[in-house]
């Protein structure tokens, strides 16, 4: 029961930390005022057709005007909305010009959708999404250069975020394009708020491209939606305003291929693993604790997970704080101070652990097997020494297992979830510049969703390695314990040493932070 309570409260802290990124305090629903109308067009060119994903995001006033004029009930799927959408799809189609080689193409409505996310004071706003399709005329030799022109003439002069992107599908190669292939607003679902991103005012696009795959008239256009993403319409209201969105919705699925995403995630996981092996990270604490206390495989697993979750949440939180504070101060100046604060926190935790262990040595650690660590430490200063011993004596494992369980029952308080939590948080809270940089870069490059996902992958890699190290420690100690005596001195000293190390690490972090903030100067 106790364990559950702690686990839940811990999860809550993580959830709140992640949720903080999405509170309205950070940004407005719309990048501009409450009469703006935001436009988004995504042209997807295949050898057979051109798909136009057309979105409009109407702020409160134009939404009110639309509701007034059309008399619809602002609920998705309401029959009046369905009627209105059919009309709107036809009306807005008239304002869209699509030409290939100077020849106008007829657009066909494939799908239409309306959402009414709440805006200021819970007043409705309106998000419209249409998919239009035009057949690409199959004249001209394969490989010949074709010119596409697209123009959006709806709501001329009205202020708003106006964005167009064009994407070549397989079989199409762009020669020139006046618009990018990736968007900045995640299809008007997530407007960037930093000052480097002034609202785009693009209402036309010019693309020259070649069709590489038109072979012998085989590719006759099929009108059925072919790939999954054509029908994928993000159903979320603007994320700045609404409860935490799902990871999938945060991503911009049309601009990153699955292959690239999988590759990126794999690399991120590898980076996380590598990161866990870096000196001075949470693993020191994990290892020190598991060897210093009477840990089981389950404890190792929990500890690894807590470190990882804390680490992820820490990165998210720090990212949020940095983003928020960067409106007032330069991040480069902010970072040392955040490090100093974490350093203070870690120092405090280290001192607390030291004190706790110092006070509780006689009771808690009398029968523990710390000398394995101590022994190897004393002789070689290398952790690998422990593993070498483990391999040398594999046959004792079964015996020790029983022995350990016995200890577990006799001293159930040896490893409490509270201790695991304290340690895990201590180990994971260290702000990790690498992960933070990945996150902030993702934010700066308008790929927040992808950045968050990368951090998760990064942390998964981290967790895997930490858990593996923890398990190694646990089993290695079991292999060893029966052959080594239980030295009280070492038993007493090791946990204290590990607590002292944590404290020293925190102090070093503070020093490092102060040096980079320019307050302390060392000449090494």
């Amino acid at each position, binding site marked *: 029961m106790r364990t559950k309570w702690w686990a839940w409260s811990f999860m809550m802290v993580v959830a709140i930390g992640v949720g903080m990124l999405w509170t309205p305090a950070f940004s407005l629903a719309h990048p*501009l005022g409450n009469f703006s109308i935001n436009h988004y067009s995504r042209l997807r060119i295949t050898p057979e057709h051109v798909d136009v994903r057309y979105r409009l995001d109407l702020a409160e006033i134009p939404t009110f005007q639309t509701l007034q004029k059309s008399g619809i009930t602002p609920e998705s799927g309401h029959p009046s909305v369905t009627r209105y959408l059919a009309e709107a799809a036809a009306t807005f189609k008239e304002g869209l010009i699509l030409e290939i080689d100077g020849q106008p193409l007829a657009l066909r409505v494939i799908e239409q959708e309306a959402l009414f996310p709440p805006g200021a004071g819970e007043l409705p706003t309106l998000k419209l999404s249409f998919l239009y399709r035009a057949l690409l005329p199959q004249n001209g030799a394969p490989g010949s250069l074709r010119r596409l022109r697209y123009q959006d003439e709806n709501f001329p*002069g009205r202020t708003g975020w106006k964005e167009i992107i064009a994407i070549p599908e397989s079989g199409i190669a762009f020669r020139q394009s006046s618009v990018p292939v990736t968007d900045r607003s995640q299809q008007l679902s997530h407007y960037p708020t930093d*000052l480097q991103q*002034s609202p785009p005012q693009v209402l036309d696009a010019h693309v*020259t491209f070649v069709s590489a795959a038109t072979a012998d008239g085989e590719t006759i256009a099929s009108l059925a939606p072919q790939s999954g993403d054509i029908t994928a319409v993000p159903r979320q209201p603007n994320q700045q305003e609404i409860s935490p969105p799902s990871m999938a919705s945060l991503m911009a699925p049309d601009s990153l291929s699955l292959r690239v995403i999988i590759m990126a995630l794999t690399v991120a996981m590898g980076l996380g693993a590598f990161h866990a092996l*870096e000196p*001075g990270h949470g693993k020191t604490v994990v290892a020190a604790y598991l060897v210093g206390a009477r840990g089981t495989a389950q404890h190792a697993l929990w500890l690894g997970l807590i470190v990882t979750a804390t680490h992820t949440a820490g990165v998210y939180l720090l990212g949020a704080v940095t983003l928020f504070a960067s409106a007032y101060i330069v991040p480069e100046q902010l970072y040392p101070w955040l490090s100093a604060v974490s350093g203070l926190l870690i120092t405090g935790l280290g001192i607390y652990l030291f004190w706790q262990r110092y006070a509780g040595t006689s009771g808690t650690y009398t029968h523990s097997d710390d000398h394995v660590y101590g022994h190897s430490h004393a002789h070689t200063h290398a952790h690998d020494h422990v593993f070498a011993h483990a391999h040398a004596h594999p046959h004792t494992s079964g015996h020790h297992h029983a022995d350990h369980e016995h200890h577990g029952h006799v001293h159930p308080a040896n490893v409490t979830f509270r201790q695991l939590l304290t340690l895990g948080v201590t180990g994971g809270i260290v702000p990790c*510049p690498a992960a933070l940089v990945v996150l902030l870069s993702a934010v700066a490059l308008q790929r927040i969703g992808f950045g968050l996902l990368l951090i998760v992958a990064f942390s998964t890699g981290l967790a895997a390695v930490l858990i593996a190290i923890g398990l190694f420690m646990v089993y290695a100690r079991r292999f060893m314990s029966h052959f080594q005596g239980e030295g009280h001195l070492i038993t007493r000293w090791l946990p204290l040493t590990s607590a002292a190390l944590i404290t020293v690490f925190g102090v070093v972090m503070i020093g490092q932070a102060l040096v980079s903030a320019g307050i302390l100067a060392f000449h090494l």
Partner: protein
Amino acid sequence: MALSLRCQLMGSYTVRLLGLSLLALALTTRTSPACAAAAPQVRTDTPADRALQTAAAFIAQWPQQHEGYIALAKASIRKARESGDDGYYQRAERAIHRILAQQPDASEALLLLAWIQIGQHQFAAALKTAERLRQRLPNDYQVYGLLGDAHAELGQYDQTASAWQRMIDLRPGPAAYSRIAYLRKLYGDMQGATEMMAMAVRAVSPRDPETYAWLLVQYGDLHFEQGRLKVAEAAYEKAHHVFPAYHRAVAAMARIRAAQQRYAEAIELYQQAVNIVPAPDMIAALGDLYHLTGQPEAAEQQYAQVAFIARLDTLNAIPYSRQVAHFYADHDRNLDAALNMMERERENRQDINTYDTLAWVYYKAGRLNDAQKAMQQALRLGTQDALLWYHAGMIAHGLGRFDTAQAQLRRALDINPYFSPLPARRARLTLAELESTARLQSAPTSVSHTAGEGS
């Protein structure tokens, strides 16, 4: 310890680099090979838009340099003025605060801050900023321009005059001319104001089309206010030509068409203007035209929109109370709310137009003595504005001071017989009624009046 620290730093740099290259990989994989400029393009963006993009690119490249944020704030203010979108003022403000956080006394940033504060109707704050700037830049003409702007909105017209005089002494130019023209207009010198505004129009650089168009609209308005529709129309035409889709020019043209009783055209033009910027005064004017042409339902739709915007503005704390309160008073609705708004507005702004609207709201709420006091404030400079004299005449009529009412209403119609379709009609009717009563009164058997009757 030093070694492990070094290791950690190196390690994190390695990871940092790897992380960045990973991101770069993910972001660039799908970028098309060539993104050079393509076929001839139709320009849909304005010079302000282009300035915004340049500033943003500069900031992206040199995020520590103040120049980028200054350029961004300037471009945002320009964009806010031309688009009527307050969101751009907020962007400008963020850019300025970014500089001020590091350098609280940066003069250029403070100058732009004062500008933004005026744009956002924070007049007292703007005055403070401008005063602070005067200490630092005692010979900068822009400082005196802003100083005068803030004083004018706070109803301190003597200080306004001296600040703008200093401005024009330091640097004569369209910015100073248009301000002097405004001041002359306030003091009732319509002739001098028109001449000065013409100078401003001639002096402005055509490379700044929005300012050019704005000055042309101001110039046209001065002629309209004197009932010279033809000259005004030509000025608006020109404004529309130099800066297409300029909502102020379109709405001004709509007002001319309404004055000419070409209501169908006026309605269409107002619709155009409102489609660009749904400003409450324009929507209300459109509603009035629907009302005039016997389309009460369409009129009510417009009126509902004004009420909606008022509600939204209250939610967002956007201080445009005057337009909304004026609308409420004109249409005898939500008078309590209007009174509330205007009494708060008076705390913020003490110029003659605020007193005029306040007086009009008092009058409609039946507080005639308060209305008269406020109206005296509104008329204290002797401004030749038909609407002001119409309001004054109606208040005098309400108070039973019929001679004054008659004189004031006639004055309103003499200044500009077309000033506003519905009020002008009401002015004529009231005047006709007063004149016929006066004739009766001058007859041997006089008819006694009851005070407060009519309105």
